[in-house]
């Protein structure tokens, strides 16, 4: 579609990474990761319609060290994307655009991500008994 070679603006690699830009690309990366997580969730639910063995296998995979690593990544991604999504919604209604506010809300999102992920996993281990 694009016709002639038009001048391009300087691309991201010429800029020093900052909290704002890093959180922005992290929002996108966690979004892509969570889209794959959606298929995991779908497989988990669907496996139960194939009977006890299939569901036990799905549960076993999720409980393996690799499964736990993936689920931990999903939990981090989810709470980051959720918190930062709310930050985006605030921007959409025109709130919080001043630089100090953008910085503060960014740090708040990171704190929210860490705290919620920790709460989730402490609860999960107390339910599953660390096995």
């Amino acid at each position, binding site marked *: 579609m694009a016709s002639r070679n038009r001048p391009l603006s300087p691309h991201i690699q010429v800029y020093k990474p900052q909290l704002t830009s890093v959180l922005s690309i992290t929002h996108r990366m966690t979004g892509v990761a969570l889209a794959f997580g959606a298929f995991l969730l779908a497989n988990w639910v669907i496996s139960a319609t194939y009977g006890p063995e299939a569901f036990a296998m799905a*549960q076993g995979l999720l409980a393996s060290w690799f499964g736990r690593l993936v689920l931990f990544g999903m939990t981090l991604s989810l709470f980051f994307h959720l918190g930062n999504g709310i930050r985006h919604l605030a921007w959409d209604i025109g709130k919080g655009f001043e630089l100090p506010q953008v910085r503060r809300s960014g740090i708040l999102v990171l704190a929210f991500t860490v705290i919620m992920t920790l709460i989730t996993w402490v609860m999960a281990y107390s339910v599953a008994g660390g096995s």
Partner: protein
Amino acid sequence: MEMRSPLGRIRGLGSTNDGIGHWWLQRVTGIALVPLMIWFVFSAIGLAGADINAFKTWVGTSGNPVLLSLLIFTMFHHGQLGLQVVVEDYIHSELTKLGLLIAIKFSAIIFGGYSIYAVMRLTFGG
């Protein structure tokens, strides 16, 4: 009023006019996913290590099949909208882009539909 020059229009530059709908749906599904996801995460914690009977009981309990179906629908919808933007931003070959966009839409609908069907089967037995 048409703001584009005839030359710009004939070259296919500019808006396709369906951007607002996409933008809006991404926000609406995002808002809906906030309570749904928090509900799901804290429900799923209780299902760590559960066997199929415990899982079926949970799926079939009171409002759970409705919430779970809404979650699955909204999650795949939001995910499809998001992946579409990512593909449109980074894939510049027209054919690859179209192929990916269609594949993403198909898989979201197939997996979303199949898992909601699974929720129904687990709830009503069979």
